[in-house]
């Protein structure tokens, strides 16, 4: 009896320390990633200093590197993706939770969740072979002849219809985040207690008023978090963008022109990079991307904590 008791205790210690080691290894991995990225980026950061972030020059021949083009491309494509993705997925979630006949609800919701699981390389391929030619033939000429002539935003939309470019990449990203965000929004809207909605309907509110005054306030914490998660995905997405952005290391005003993002620069140039400074500059780009997504996540978490604190305990 005593023997088995000590044996049990030893196994207890072994098992609990094994779980602890594994949990701490998650922490160590993140630390290691930061150290490795920083160490790899150090030669470039030392050589170019802070001007690395603000320089638009990316020239492997003269070994002059700056991150501005890639940062600009990353941020702009993500903004375009959010401008398309947020309202559309919001509309889809409203449609599924409030309007859809109940027999159609489950099929649409399942379809959207399955679409969210499709690998991003598929979106990229479709963008390159199907969407970009269509966009160049039918949409871009129209954009540059209408929006391109407007006074202030005109330069953003002028240029030849190439099909590939920053705008195309942003749109593909937007299409890609739609299923992801729509399914999160739907999950959020579903948790609103029916009794709250019913009492609002009972005093004569319209469907939109119920959404605006009941559903959104109840779920705003999660909605903000979901948007941030979608943004994080868009910032770090590689394959959907690499196919269609055109990989040009020049800063262009027009969204119709090819550009580059941090992740597509890495995907295209990393294995071909020769020389310490070139590789190191690419790793420095990666470091910037890591901190960008880290900031977005931290911001999302902070907002969530603040919103929950402000609301106090829900009864």
């Amino acid at each position: 009896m005593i023997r088995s008791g000590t044996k049990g205790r030893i196994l207890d210690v072994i098992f609990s320390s094994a779980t602890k080691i594994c949990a701490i290894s998650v922490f160590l991995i993140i630390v290691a990633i930061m150290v490795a990225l920083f160490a790899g980026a150090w030669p470039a950061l030392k050589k170019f200093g802070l001007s690395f972030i603000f320089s638009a020059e990316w020239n492997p021949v003269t070994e002059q590197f700056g991150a501005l083009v890639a940062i600009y491309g990353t941020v702009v494509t993500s903004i375009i993706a959010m401008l398309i993705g947020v309202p559309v997925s919001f509309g889809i979630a409203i449609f599924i939770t409030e309007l859809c006949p109940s027999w159609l609800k489950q099929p649409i919701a399942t379809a959207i969740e399955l679409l969210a699981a499709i690998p991003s390389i598929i979106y990229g391929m479709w963008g390159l072979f199907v969407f970009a030619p269509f966009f160049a033939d039918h949409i871009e000429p129209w954009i540059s002849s209408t929006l391109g002539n407007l006074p202030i935003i005109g330069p953003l939309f002028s240029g030849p219809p190439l099909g590939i470019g920053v705008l195309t990449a942003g749109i593909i990203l937007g299409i890609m985040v739609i299923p992801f965000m729509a399914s999160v929004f739907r999950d959020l809207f579903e948790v609103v207690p029916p009794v709250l909605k019913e009492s609002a309907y009972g005093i004569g509110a319209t469907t939109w008023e119920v959404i605006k005054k009941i559903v959104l306030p109840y779920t705003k914490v999660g909605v903000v978090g979901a948007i941030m998660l979608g943004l994080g995905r868009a910032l770090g997405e590689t394959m959907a963008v690499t196919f269609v952005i055109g990989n040009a290391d020049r800063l262009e005003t027009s969204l119709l022109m090819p550009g580059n993002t941090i992740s597509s620069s890495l995907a295209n140039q990393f294995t071909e990079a020769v020389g310490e400074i070139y590789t190191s500059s690419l790793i420095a780009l990666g470091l910037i991307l890591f901190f960008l997504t880290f900031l977005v996540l931290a911001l999302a978490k902070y907002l969530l904590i603040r919103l929950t604190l402000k609301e106090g305990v829900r009864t």
Partner: protein
Amino acid sequence: MNGLKNINASLYRRRRFINYAVLASSILTTLFGLFWLVWLLVTLFSHGFKYLNLAVLTQPTPPPGEAGGLANAIVGSIMITCMGVAIGAPVGVLAGTFLSEYAARSRIAHVIRFVNDVLLSAPSIILGVFIYEIVVVPSGHFSGWAGSLALALIALPIIVRTTEDMLRLVPNTVREAACALGAPRWKVTVSVVYRAARAGIFTGILLAIARISGETAPLLFTALNNQFWSSSLNEPMANLPVVIFQFAMSPYEDWQHLAWAGALLITISVLVLNIIVRTFLRAGHKS
């Protein structure tokens, strides 16, 4: 009285109008969103099935202009993915166990949960760069192992998250009952809690497999690619996502056709995995 009635009527009309406008635009956005996704799937399936044949599954990747298939890439993908899960799953399950069973409310658990979320949202290409620096550079060559490790880093946070969530669903009374019978803590966890949550844990692992089997970016600088048959994880290894990327970006039409077939294969396997997960979850809810 009459005036008030008019105001109310116009207010009512306005509210009704706004309501209809919003609902109509929600239907329109749904159609808009589904339109692109349906278009994508239709192209994928029509192109994919056109170029999918037995040779795709049995022949290795060809040089441009010759006949061939994707067999080495398929085998490579399966091996790299399996190794990735084999590395990531045990660590993930144990870490999730720690968070749920041993340190649920402690400070260290909060830190690890946050760090896990950071890892979950880290761009996959960064994980590829990381593995490149710590595995590929020191060993001097690209390898299947490096690819597996990169995929393990993607699978890990997913498995930690789902394991913790699933273990938390097991009611405390079950643990207390087992403890009261004199079972040591590890035995309670392994034979009682794991057993109660096994469908959920398995689901998390399947989800992680579905996620990593289509990942391309981290494999670009780790497993790279291989034109030939290779069953050694110690060498650069062909894998479906990277082959698709290379072939799709190439100017050769027969390569592009193979890329479509490969894209279809990946999509089908990811969708099948997700459907299995769904059935599992449903079975778990019933019991």
